[in-house]
């Protein structure tokens, strides 16, 4: 691809759907994509794979910033399967020769994009939090945290096209509807040979609690200082009052007080909600790696020197067992007023 660098143009996003409905990450990518397309003076296209995708949702992608939507819809594309999705995406890349392709750093994006980037001979940067265009060259500047969030690295792909990146969910606001936007919806047919898969999705087991940690705007997270499993109920009450998802440090998960899907940090989930309320968490670097990009951080800890206060906007040095009942009650009051 190196030689034909200048043939490539246009910014593309991978929109995601579940049960035929376009997912939030797609609108976040529209925010990113629109900005890049405007800076580059080019068009923004959303590609989406699925089956029976809601037509209003496709139009909504245009209302929210896409100039064009390209869909491939087949029963076999209903759920993410790496081989058919990659075959379809590669076909699109070959036919349309985009300059930039971005996807969410979701379980889909982080699996599909590297699979495609190898075959497209393209550079790929994972989990970016900032994307920009370098003025002189038009190259995509991709900035991402590395080494557990200790450092940020800016990466570019000077020669190869497309330039590909995955973008951390919740690292930008979803695009909103603008009046009077128009655009085209292109429905492509995926040839049968693209739909072969050596992986078969036989079932889906939703998380019992549907806590949606990764998508939550507000997260109440609990650490070992909660002392025992029974005390988790205090956290649950607070989370309920705040309409929040629950997260946990590794020590809490290792002790079996909450299960692994709740774990935030280096070996758990990376999240950046609007509000992260850390209760009795010390703030070990591995924990910070998973949450320090949250918009607002509040910490409650009895140790005034706890690391967590270094990344917090608001902190209370206190015994959680005194604070929690009062806090839940006050929030309840405030909400009903």
């Amino acid at each position: 691809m190196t030689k034909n660098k200048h043939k490539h143009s246009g910014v593309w996003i991978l929109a995601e759907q579940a049960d035929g409905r376009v997912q939030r990450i797609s609108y976040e990518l529209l925010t990113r994509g629109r900005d890049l397309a405007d800076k580059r003076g080019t068009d923004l296209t959303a590609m989406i794979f699925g089956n029976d995708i809601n037509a209003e949702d496709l139009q909504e992608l245009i209302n929210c910033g896409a100039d064009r939507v390209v869909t491939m819809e087949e029963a076999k594309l209903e759920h993410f399967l790496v081989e058919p999705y990659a075959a379809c995406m590669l076909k699109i890349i070959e036919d349309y020769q985009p300059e930039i392709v971005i996807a969410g750093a979701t379980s889909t994006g982080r699996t599909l994009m590297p699979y495609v980037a190898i075959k497209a001979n393209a550079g790929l940067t994972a989990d970016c939090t900032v994307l920009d265009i370098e003025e002189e060259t038009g190259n995509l500047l991709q900035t991402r945290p590395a080494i557990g969030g200790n450092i940020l690295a800016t990466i570019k792909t000077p020669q190869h096209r497309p330039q590909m990146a995955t973008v951390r969910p919740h690292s930008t606001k979803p695009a909103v509807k603008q009046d009077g936007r128009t655009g085209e919806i292109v429905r492509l047919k995926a040839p049968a040979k693209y739909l072969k898969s050596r992986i078969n999705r036989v079932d889906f087991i939703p998380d019992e609690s549907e806590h949606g940690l990764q998508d939550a705007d507000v997260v109440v997270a609990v650490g070992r200082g909660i002392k025992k499993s029974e005390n988790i109920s205090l956290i649950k009450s607070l989370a309920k009052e705040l309409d929040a998802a629950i997260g946990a440090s590794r020590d809490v998960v290792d002790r079996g007080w909450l299960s692994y899907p709740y774990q935030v940090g280096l070996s758990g989930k990376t999240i950046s909600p609007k509000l992260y309320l850390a209760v009795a968490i010390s703030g070990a670097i591995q924990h910070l790696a998973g949450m320090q990009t949250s918009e607002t951080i509040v910490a409650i800890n009895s140790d005034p020197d706890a690391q967590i206060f270094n990344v917090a906007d608001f902190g209370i040095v206190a015994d959680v067992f005194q604070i929690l009942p009062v806090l839940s009650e006050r929030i309840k009051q405030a909400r009903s007023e």
Partner: protein
Amino acid sequence: MRIIVPIKQVPETNTVKMDENTGTIIRDGVESIINPLDLYAIEIAIQLRQQHGGEVIAISMGPPKAVTALREAIAMGCDSAVLLSDKAFAGADTWATSYVLAKAIERMGSYDMVICGERATDGDTGQVGPGIASFLDLPVASYIGKVEQVDKKSCRLHRLVENGHEVLDVELPAVLTMVKEVADPRLPTLGGKQRAKKIDIPVWTANDIEADLDKLGLTGSPTRVVRIFRPKVVRQCEKITAMDDSIVDQAVDKLVVFLQKKDFI
């Protein structure tokens, strides 16, 4: 079962230091460990061998000292190991890393599974597993939290996604990437440590894996790191001490006001 486990040696995250002048990472004197998430890959591979027979081979691309990570893998119970080391591999991004690992795996003959960690704690991309699969034209199942059933031709896996688990049937051979939930890594045994000390670990170069020189290291890497910097800490913590009963109410009130100002309540 013949299982290949690519592992990476990484600096221990706690001790990462930066040279503030040059903006580069100081690696001297920093202890190196096996990428913690690769321990889960090693563990599940050993368990599968214990259940089904066969062998587990650890491979790593890295500088000569990465051999210590491979010896640790042997001490845990891997049967053998290969180090991929060549000056030409240096500076590889995930594209060029996947290429070298895939070429090496190709050279190893037939196999049933390639099991990776979900991501490495230094690069933190999670791209190498799917990358290897793409080069080898194999299916890849990422974020595996449970291996339910394995036979000669396929395996049933649980893949952790945003709001639940997918249950997947995957044809073998395949590339899998493991998350922490899958197993508890064992500690090296005394016998294992002794074997690890003595075992011969071959070193393969670009020549040995018949790699295309244009695809190696920095030359073969589409991406370039142009700047490394420390994130600015912009947070100013408003900290209230309420160790005393009497001011708990006051502290909570302040927090509630703070949350109201930010529109969370």
